[in-house]
């Protein structure tokens, strides 16, 4: 009798707990879905070929956002050029070569702290180092470098994790067959870790694409009548453009603001989806 009662009670508790957890999970997803739907509804009507391929005019109150889209593309690519090789190299060093000593611990501490620095501080740092000291001016180059520094910790730590996830036995076997450490890394470890590394790279770049503060003083232009010609030109960019038309331009048509937000959101979400696809495909193909 007693045990029967207890067991039924236990089931009730389990069901209750399960419902609570499900409810909480649903609530965490709601804001994301809500945001996407809201922006879609508010900004969807602004999206047209002209909006995507035209220059802004009438003090940005009409026309398109092409220079901002292209600018964000340039900045993302520029960030990738610097942060990807550097980040992967650092991850390889930390995962495959570094011994656990004082220096390594210092490097790790620096990376962790780098990840915690507010993005506006990166902006100021970039202004001081790249714009003024190295005299790159407010330019795509300076902004890309600033964004790179911000992105590095993400790329390093996800890449290192991906490298470490490759079974140790592959390394031992490879070395025992007469491979050098570098041959082992280049022929086996990197190939196996690549999907994980790519995921990290895309997530890092995605963050860079959406940031305003780091490019605020280093490369973003309020308005440019033409596309940038070189890496030493300033550029318009989606997040900064959104900030500008939301706060700096009076009587701004609201659907242009939301349209811009929608484009930025799609840009970032697309990168996210690519990362997810790479990861799930690699997982299905993985031989360990």
């Amino acid at each position, binding site marked *: 009798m007693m045990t029967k009662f207890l067991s039924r009670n236990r089931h009730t508790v389990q069901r209750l707990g399960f419902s609570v957890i499900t409810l909480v999970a649903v609530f965490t997803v709601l804001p994301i879905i809500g945001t996407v739907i809201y922006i879609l509804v508010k900004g969807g009507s602004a999206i047209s070929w002209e909006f995507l391929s035209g220059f802004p005019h009438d003090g940005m109150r009409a026309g398109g956002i092409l220079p901002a889209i292209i600018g964000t593309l340039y900045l993302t690519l520029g960030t990738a050029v610097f942060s990807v090789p550097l980040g992967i190299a650092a991850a390889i060093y930390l995962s495959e070569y570094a011994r656990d000593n004082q220096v390594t611990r210092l490097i790790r501490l620096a990376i962790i702290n780098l990840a915690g620095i507010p993005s506006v501080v990166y902006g100021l740092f970039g202004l001081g180092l790249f714009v003024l000291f190295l005299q790159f001016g407010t330019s795509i180059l300076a902004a890309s470098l600033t964004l790179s520094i911000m992105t590095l910790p993400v790329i390093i730590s996800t890449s290192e994790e991906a490298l470490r996830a490759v*079974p140790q*036995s*592959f*390394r*031992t*076997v*490879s*070395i*025992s*067959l*007469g*491979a*050098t450490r570098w*041959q082992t890394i280049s*022929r*086996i470890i990197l*190939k*196996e870790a690549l999907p994980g590394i790519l995921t990290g790279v895309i997530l890092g770049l995605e963050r860079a694409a959406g940031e305003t503060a780091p490019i605020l003083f280093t490369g973003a232009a309020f308005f440019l009548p033409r596309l940038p010609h070189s890496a030493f030109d300033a550029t318009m960019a989606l997040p900064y453009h959104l900030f500008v038309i939301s706060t700096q331009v009076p009587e701004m048509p609201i659907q242009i603001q939301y349209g811009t937000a929608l484009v930025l959101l799609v840009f970032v979400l697309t990168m996210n989806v690519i990362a997810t696809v790479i990861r799930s495909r690699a997982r299905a193909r*993985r*031989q*360990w």
Partner: protein
Amino acid sequence: MVDKIIIENLSLQYSDGTESLRGVSMEIRQNAVTVLFGPAGGGKSTLLRCLNRLNDLTEVKASSGRILIDGENILDPKTDVIALRRKVGMVFARPVTLPMSIRENIIYGLELMGEKRKSKLDEAVERSLKLSAIWDEIKDRLDEPAIALSGGQQQRVCLARVLALQPEIVLLDEPTSGLDPISTGKVEAALLELKKEYTVILVPHSVQQAARTADHAAFFLTGELIEYGDGKTLFTNPKQKKTEDYVMGRFG
């Protein structure tokens, strides 16, 4: 019989204080199966990993002594470890095939050496797979992922991968520990075939396997070489009390 390897007063201690060797001296004969056996933690694997300097990957606190292979001390810091590892191949307890096709697994070591000629590589694949007694089973699926094979097949591919490099010495660290009896039988049969061409050093996964395969046998206990001698004699008529107790199954 020629002594292929001479180990002189070898001692080793890992940084974390685990399994170590204490003053081990022994000669290992060419073209024979030498079995290193004893309870876990006796130093057998450590000794194997000294012979191809795989211990370089592990944190070693202190080591002393000499290992002469063909008269050269391989523990000398100036030793070309890459060349050494090609000469002294190793098969591990768990079959670890690399994440690539069977064929690519076999030619991995050769490609590292820069061998690109297809005829040479094909020849090596066939020869080593035949020696490992698996050619007939898998010759039609060489381009499939090696991971798709059964454990026993994978282990023989691992052996073939070592043999493809035409080593002189083959180290086997409990190569059949994860295999079923039939696969074990096949691997053991391959071993007996191997000693015609190679010097084979085996850490067996049981005393029975040691007795079945040993030309020479060495009994290790807590890092010390307790008894070393002819396989037949050692298992039927051991001189040391400790060896007898272990062989008879009184401890283990």
